[in-house]
């Protein structure tokens, strides 16, 4: 499996090249910032009609990760929907695919700033969720321990032989782990932006996603 193994808060975790986090001991897969319904929301608000394939693509990639890990618990770490109306406007095919993915699995929707209320889909709806030494919430909190969060859409860049390589990235230090955005129509925030350098400890690392994920000291 294309993954980087890390030990975080005493737990053995795998950062997958797809941007999902896999916790084998709990058979738990965590993804953040799916932003389902992004193209629908843009069109609804009079913006450009973006290609309406974002939900299909995001869910297909999630289905692949679920198939390859065999996860029995799924955590969607907030901003799963671009807004609450987007969750109600899902096309039937997307809705059916979500239902199919949920079948036989414990599924937890964590609230995000884009989707602060419960959505009309199966699964539990929680502000945050704890398991063993880890706590899952959308936005990182000051002084947290063993915290898994999303929200910032981190990405990281390294330079080699004249080539700048930028990828969505996990950021991790002793106390927190921030996931990259998983949704197809999402951008990223570079790790050297003040908001991320302030949040992460000086010895933080970044895991660049892609076909062969790589861990590096977090660029700042």
């Amino acid at each position, binding site marked *: 499996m294309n993954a*980087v*193994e*890390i*030990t975080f808060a005493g737990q053995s975790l795998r950062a997958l090249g797809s941007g999902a986090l896999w916790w084998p001991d709990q058979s738990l897969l965590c993804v953040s910032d799916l932003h389902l319904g992004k*193209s*629908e929301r843009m*069109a*609804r608000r*009079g*913006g*450009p*009609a*973006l*290609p*309406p*394939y*974002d939900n*299909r*693509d995001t869910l297909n990639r999630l289905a692949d990760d679920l198939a390859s890990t065999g996860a029995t618990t799924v955590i969607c770490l907030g901003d799963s929907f671009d807004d609450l109306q987007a969750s109600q406007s899902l*096309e039937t095919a997307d809705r059916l695919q979500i239902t199919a993915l949920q079948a036989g699995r414990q599924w937890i929707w964590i609230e995000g700033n884009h989707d602060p209320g419960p959505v009309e889909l199966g699964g539990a709806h929680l502000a945050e969720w704890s398991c063993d030494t880890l706590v899952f919430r959308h936005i990182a909190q000051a002084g947290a321990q063993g915290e898994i969060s999303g929200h*910032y*859409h981190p990405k990281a860049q*390294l*330079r*080699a*032989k*004249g*080539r700048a*390589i930028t990828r969505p990235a996990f950021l991790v230090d002793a106390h927190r782990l921030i996931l990259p*955005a998983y949704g*197809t*129509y*999402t*951008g*990223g*925030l*570079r790790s050297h932006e003040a908001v991320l350098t302030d949040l992460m400890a000086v*010895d933080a*690392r970044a895991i*660049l996603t*892609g*076909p*062969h994920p*790589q*861990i*590096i*000291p977090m660029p700042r």
Partner: protein
Amino acid sequence: MTTLPSPISDWFSSQGWAIHLHQHAMIDRAQDPATLLIAPTGGGKTMAGFLPTLSELAENPPDGLHTIYVSPLKALAADIKRNLRRPADEIGLPIRIEDRTGDTSATQKKRQRADPPHILLTTPESLALLTSYEDAPRMFDGVQRVIVDEIHALAESKRGDQLMLALARLQRLCPDLRRVGLSATVEDPEAIARFLARHPDPCQIIQADPGPDPDISMLETHEMPPWSGGGAAYAIPAVLDQIRQHKTTLIFHNTRAQAEIFFHNLWLANDEGLPIGIHHGSLDRQQRERVEGAMVRGELRAIVCTGSLDLGIDWGDVDLVIQIGAPKNVKRLVQRIGRANHRYNAPSKALLVPANRFEVVECVAALEAVQAHDLDGDPRGPGPRDVLCQHILIAAAAGPFQADDLYTEMTAAGPYAALTRAEFDACLDFCATGGYALRAYDRWQRLQQRPDGAWQLRDPRATRRIRMNLGTIQDTDTLKVRLKRSRGGKPLGEVEEGFAASLTQGDTFLIGGQIVRYEGLREMVVEVSRRADRKPKIATFSGTKFATSTQLSDRILRMFAQPDWPQLPRHTADWLALQRDISCLPQRDRLLIESFPNDGRENLCVYGFAGRNAQQTLGLLLTKRMEETGLAPLGFVATDYATLIWGLDAVTDPRPLFRLEALRDGLDTWLAGNAVMKRTFRASATIAGLIERNTGGQRKSGRQATFSSDILYDTLLKYDPDHLLMQITREEAMRGLVDFGRIEAMIERIGDRIDLKRLDRVSPLSAPLFLEVGKVPVKGAAEERLLAEESARLMQAAGLSAD
């Protein structure tokens, strides 16, 4: 011959001016539906365009717009206003002349729509914008003439297509509208005439006397030009000498970055403090206007500039033009020389300064071409459909329309004369629904059809977004640069967002000829402080990439075949001899390939001399085979002469790369995934309205809310590969490439006459390629290898283990 009203002819006599033959011809042809005038700079071209207007307005001018003048530059519109005001006043014409550009105040613009002047001077974008208002029919009521200045420059880009669509709309509002195009010397006047005229109106071409041949030569210097490099720093003393000997010198550069470096070096050597200015499109408007003003007043001895001064602004007493760097294309060279000596019938004086030794060869070839009156240029293809999509939205902003009417209107524009109804309908469908195979959100359609069949905007508020995103100029995202002060310091200009992102505090770069230190980014403004003590990093301003002609390539190949080179300076002849000695000089019926390591990477240089588009296509094909054979290519760059490919592993046997069946296999997939396509998609999607540059409030700032256009491209490629925008992307990308068939023919022709030279370092001839702009990255196995190696190195350097 038609006579002019006496106040006008009297005024000409009082100035001691005779009316030129071509000016008379324009008056004679004043009633024609379309006329194209081709005249050299200084030939009274603009006056020739306006004489019929002045003549028609001489007696009892009716209220309302009579003539619209369109130029590619805002500065040109302002300049013409000045130059037209004086004769109008002295002749005693009671007419209003006003300009309208992006710089015009909102109050003034509003007043112009309610009460238009007799003559309106504007740009293609401002004119297109005017047609988007519901009250356009009232404002344009009674317009008689439109004058398109510097039409040869507009025809080179999508701005020209936009203008012709705007004129088609204007013509529908004013059926009697007469069109005049003013052009510098071009290789194919008939093509420009077809571009200008309402299809299928005829368009007469009037050729003014081209005047004497220009006095043009290569600048002689004591110092030798370097092997490679674009700065021409070696020529600074000789250029200063020339400035001293002339009244006003224009020093042209091909890129803004080169202009900045040259100006900086010139300033350091300018011991006697000659007044010298710099002018380019990335400088702040106030700075540019200051330089323009000083130049008009004759206060400057020299101006270092780029294409921003390329067009026919009347700057007074320019008596010398210096071109730094190879002029790339002979037509542009002749047009630039036109800038010197605005007195008609006096030869223009120009000096070429090659920046490196290959450019010496290019300059000599270009001089021969100018003497042979051998102009070059590529034929203009059909009008691009991304611009058509934008104009469908502009039409919708002006009010409901019937598809049949709009199709008729648009196909009257020269560039779109061959547009089929099916092509038009696809564009309309894209504008209305997005045009996706998956019809997802029909209730959110942008355009909706009324019961009477007319199309209208679903949400009338969309007009604002359409207007804000109008235009075809693809400025890469830029950020303003200001001096850091407590209350916002002096604006200096702009740099590309990508360049700004590469800066860390303390880095220095050049802007407006000063070295500044990067202090930080505040609210999307780059804050800097003045700093003169460090060697600057160089701003990567975007430079225009000119394609050289194949004629120039042919001349150079012929030169290479000579046993020795008496027509070249000694240093350059020696340099060619060295190339022949350690490698080989390219020959017409063979293919020279050099392979050598440099700077930690392996390089492959393929000298096809096939023109930039073919070399670019060759780059795409060869990197495909290199990726397949595990040679880990990282990227390539193409010029008219060669393709340089760099990667992680050396090519020792070129034959597998050129195997035709292997090249064909999987080619579509490879081409579709390439960076060239993604760049083209970004441009077309922006013009067609799928990506908005301006969204109203704050501009996009690279925060997590925005995502790359590459994602949209990849998504369409995966789920809707035949979508209209994908078709447009392929059409537009092909303008910069050639048919695969042509490369196949070339490979078959060459056969086994391929010479691979394995060298231990950069060859003389390949050195200049390393500084070319327009590099195309290849994202394949090499990137993964680099990422793995560099990650391991970084972790080790930080004393960390991977888990």
